[in-house]
């Protein structure tokens, strides 16, 4: 490390002769034992995308099976179908969406945004990654011992009595993944507290960091409840007695309380970082100071706090008391407000901006569109009497796919395009990117908007067979899922292609102001030689296009350090 050129300015032009984290050291072990947050982030990214492929294949199997009522794919019977949707849900939730933004993109970007050399505890970070791998291995093991058909929610007493053999391994896997998530959250909280550079007060942090901070708080405080619940489930399955067993005086609904106490906040573990990414994408590509900084920041924290108080809205029909239903419904509506505030502020950020219409920006705008639908249909589900009708139908399926996939995952893909040049040092083909976006966006809406209609007409979820009058909607939905799959494969192709034929990326291809755009692309091993000073990360007045750099440059970077907070 000491042999490196210590005088190199941190915004130096990239070139093969400059150190970068990808080629800094070589060999398998230099990756497997790396403590570099960028490499760990990249390994997470590859692992998460691999899981996304597997979860996606199960989704396509489910959709294909539903093309006709009754059996469609030869050899796929009810039991196999039940395993398909269970695997799809469990993989997508625990292996893909929860770690996707914080662990993959967050790991890569967070320390650089802070101008730090790494996260607070690099070894713990690597440990989190290997816990993730162990969790994934447990899931694979469960498939080899009979699979599991409990649904990703593991509701008792079905999960403690079903004869499929893979329940204990997969629950153990989710338990381990929980600790991976807790350690990542803990790492991020300490990093943000202790490693902010001089001049970066709380209210000068990029909004992604606020979002990741709020997310980390939820990860740290909610995930342990899931862990203990799953432990109780394992014990009950082994010893045939436990708190959830009605035959012995236990309470099966207690499991649902515990489960949703984690799993509702988990929805915000998914969506909050996505909102953070959108705040970055919208302001950077509109070259416009984010509108209402404090409102966006505080709304993240408000969402994190409210998220702990609304779990009961998953249980309006489960037999909890009408009083509890009423209280949970009321608090649930309060979550709508901070989400609405964010949407309005993003829209106001576009006003009088200078908007580059490119792939990340389209994903950003697509996010607002889809999240609006996801959020508004949440009103139908938070309202007591309409939820009685809609609960556990395809309406719910459509709603949470609009939020978890249409919002969280779309933001993840948008963020991937946004930071791709920074991560790999190559530009992807912009036109190809837009085609990918169009396919995903259209496919998504065709797939899931139809499911709102299925659900409101009464089609229950997790059904292998269904009355034939629902078929047309299922057929349209399945066609949509094929279009979406084509879009994702296309996106994979264009990103991989960019590694070989893409233009060399400049340090700052979009005109961003936050610190990650001031080190080279890809960043050097230790990010910055000296801790950089920071100004207003949303002041784009100093951003200028430079022909010789092939990208944007930031003039007078630290001049405004004395300006007041946002």
């Amino acid at each position, binding site marked *: *490390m000491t042999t490196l050129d210590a005088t190199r300015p941190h915004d130096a032009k990239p070139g093969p002769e400059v150190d970068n984290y990808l080629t*800094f*050291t070589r060999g398998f072990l*230099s990756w497997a*034992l*790396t*403590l*570099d947050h960028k490499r760990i982030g990249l390994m997470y990214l590859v692992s998460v995308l691999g899981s996304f492929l597997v979860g996606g294949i199960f989704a396509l199997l489910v959709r294909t099976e539903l093309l006709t009522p009754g059996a469609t794919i030869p050899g796929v019977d009810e039991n196999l179908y039940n395993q398909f949707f269970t695997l799809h849900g469990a993989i997508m939730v625990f292996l893909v969406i929860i770690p996707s933004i914080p662990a993959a993109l967050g790991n890569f970007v967070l*320390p650089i945004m802070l101008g*730090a*050399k*790494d*996260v*607070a*505890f*690099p*070894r*713990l970070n690597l440990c989190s990654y290997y816990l993730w791998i162990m969790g994934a291995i447990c899931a694979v093991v469960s498939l080899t011992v009979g699979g599991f058909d409990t649904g990703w929610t593991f509701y008792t007493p079905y999960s403690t009595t079903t004869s499929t053999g893979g329940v204990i391994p997969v629950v153990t896997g989710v338990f381990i993944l929980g600790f991976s998530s*807790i350690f990542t*959250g*803990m*790492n991020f*909280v*300490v990093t943000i*507290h*202790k*490693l902010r550079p001089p001049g970066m007060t709380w209210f000068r942090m990029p909004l992604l960091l606020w979002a990741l901070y709020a997310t980390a708080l939820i990860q*740290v*405080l*909610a*995930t*342990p*409840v899931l*862990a*203990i*619940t799953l*432990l*109780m489930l394992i*014990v009950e399955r082994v*010893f*045939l*007695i*436990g*708190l959830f067993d009605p035959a*012995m*005086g*236990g*309470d099966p609904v*207690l499991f649902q309380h*515990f489960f949703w*106490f984690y799993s509702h906040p988990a929805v915000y573990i998914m969506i909050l970082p996505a909102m953070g990414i959108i705040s970055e994408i919208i302001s950077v590509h509109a070259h416009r100071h984010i509108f209402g900084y404090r409102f966006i920041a505080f709304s993240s924290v408000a969402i994190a706090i409210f998220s702990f108080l609304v779990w009961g809205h998953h249980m309006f029909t489960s037999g909890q008391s009408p009083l509890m239903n009423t209280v949970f419904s009321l608090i649930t509506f309060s979550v709508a407000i901070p989400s609405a505030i964010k949407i309005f502020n993003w829209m106001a950020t576009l006003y009088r901006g200078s908007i580059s219409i490119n792939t990340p920006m389209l994903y950003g705008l697509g996010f607002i569109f889809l999240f609006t639908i996801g959020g508004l249909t949440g009103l139908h589900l938070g309202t007591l009497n309409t939820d009685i009708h809609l609960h556990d139908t395809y309406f719910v399926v459509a709603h949470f796919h609009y939020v978890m996939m249409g919002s969280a995952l779309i933001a993840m893909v948008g963020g991937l395009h946004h930071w791709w040049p920074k991560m790999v040092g190559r530009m992807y083909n912009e036109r190809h990117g837009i085609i990918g976006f169009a396919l995903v966006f259209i496919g998504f809406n065709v797939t899931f908007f139809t499911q709102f209609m299925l659900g409101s007409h009464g089609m229950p979820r997790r059904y292998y067979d269904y009355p034939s009058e629902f078929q047309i909607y299922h057929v349209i939905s399945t066609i949509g899922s094929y279009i979406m799959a084509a879009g994702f494969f296309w996106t994979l192709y264009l990103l991989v292609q960019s590694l070989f034929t893409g233009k060399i990326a400049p340090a700052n291809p979009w005109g961003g102001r936050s610190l990650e755009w001031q080190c080279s692309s890809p960043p050097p*091993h*230790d990010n910055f030689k000296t801790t950089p000073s920071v100004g207003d990360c949303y002041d784009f007045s100093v951003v200028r296009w430079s022909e010789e750099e092939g990208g944007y440059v930031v003039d007078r970077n630290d001049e405004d350090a004395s300006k007041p907070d946002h």
Partner: protein
Amino acid sequence: MANIVSPFEDPSTRLSAGRFGMLIFIASLAMIFAASILGVMVVRFEDSGVWPPEGMPSLPGILLWSTVVLIASSGTQVLASRAAGRGDGPALRRWMIMTLGLAIVFLIMQGWAWIDLLDRGLDFSRHLYAWTFYFLTGLHALHVIGGVIPMCFVTARAVRLGYTRENHRGVAYVAMYWHFLDVAWITLYVTLLWGVGTLPW
């Protein structure tokens, strides 16, 4: 070599970051105990019957003594931490060995309580009363074992006089975790006494 083990250059910021991280981890573990206690309470009060049910033994008195031992180990841990802060290696060595010894005695006493109850016929799967006792004490014992392992490493290093006044992060972290286990056990013990409705005197 190539890897940055910590981004903090100055040992005191590194220690304060580490302590902060430990605090968050403890908050996380506290949620585990809080949820277990809450779950047990919900089920206990939904059950209109008497706990312990007819014919099942009440909590053994040895738990009271193990509680005393655990509190004592927390006390010796405080003395160990102070010694580390002064840079007093021999005192640190003495108090760490004491703490580790008390920790192991505590585990043995918990095991004793289990054996005693099993002897008196309190089978894990007979009733949720039994389940509650074994689950809560077992959960705590697992955490104690999880604390004793790093404590062994810290004690071994203290025996070699490996800590200095400036660098004693291991001692600091183990101490935080240990005090947490102390508080967690007292909470659990009160829960068991209160929820079960029988005091040992």
